């Protein structure tokens, strides 16, 4: 089924965001593991796998619309040097992803591609949940101090 060019362009744009997020979360997760912060590793590793599943959904959708998914392009990875900074950078990336998804959804709606919009809606749901978790962690760090917070993530 031939898809709308604008929609395909937007789907590819969101795909780039997802591919970037997969790598950023994966590296952060393994950095946490390397430092012995197993609880953070588990959570962020799962986030990376979720991003991979979202990327898969988008790739399948682009192929169905007879477009070519661009797996070559990758955005700038925001890699931190300390746990608190890494969580803040993940939140920053996640927010820019959410903005991109919202813009893509608006264009899907405009071009009457409701199935793509619903798929993006499902992704957006997951993203909002993750950004909320990240915000909670940053609040906790502010309230209890980073040392105490990290003690609960061993």
């Amino acid at each position, binding site marked *: 089924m031939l898809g709308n060019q604008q929609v395909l362009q937007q789907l590819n744009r969101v795909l780039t965001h997802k591919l970037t997020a997969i790598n950023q979360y994966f590296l952060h997760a393994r950095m946490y593991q390397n430092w012995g912060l197993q609880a953070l590793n588990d959570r962020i590793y799962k986030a990376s796998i979720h991003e991979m599943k979202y990327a898969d959904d988008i790739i399948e959708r682009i192929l169905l619309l007879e477009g070519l998914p661009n797996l070559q392009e990758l955005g700038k990875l925001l890699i931190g*040097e300390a746990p608190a900074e890494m969580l803040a950078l993940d939140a920053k990336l996640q927010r820019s992803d959410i903005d991109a998804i919202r813009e893509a959804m608006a264009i899907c709606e405009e071009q009457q591609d409701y199935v793509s919009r619903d798929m993006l809606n499902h992704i957006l749901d997951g993203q909002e949940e993750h950004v909320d978790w990240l915000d909670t962690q940053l609040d906790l760090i502010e309230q209890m101090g980073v040392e105490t917070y990290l003690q609960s993530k061993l």
Partner: protein
Amino acid sequence: MYVCLCKGVSDHTIRQAVDDGLSSMRELRQQYGVASQCGCCKQCAKEVLADALQQKQRRFAQESLIDTDVCYA
């Protein structure tokens, strides 16, 4: 954070280098290899460099202001 992942250069490294006298992207590339491999970090490196230079300048102005005050007093 890491500005250039290819060469492992962090924003702290860049700020330290600016304090030690570095002032351009060209020097940053020559001395640390920033933006010499994939080029993804070019924009980010430019922003960090500009910010570091501005901060250095502000600090410099502040320090000389303090001196002037002392002179007048």
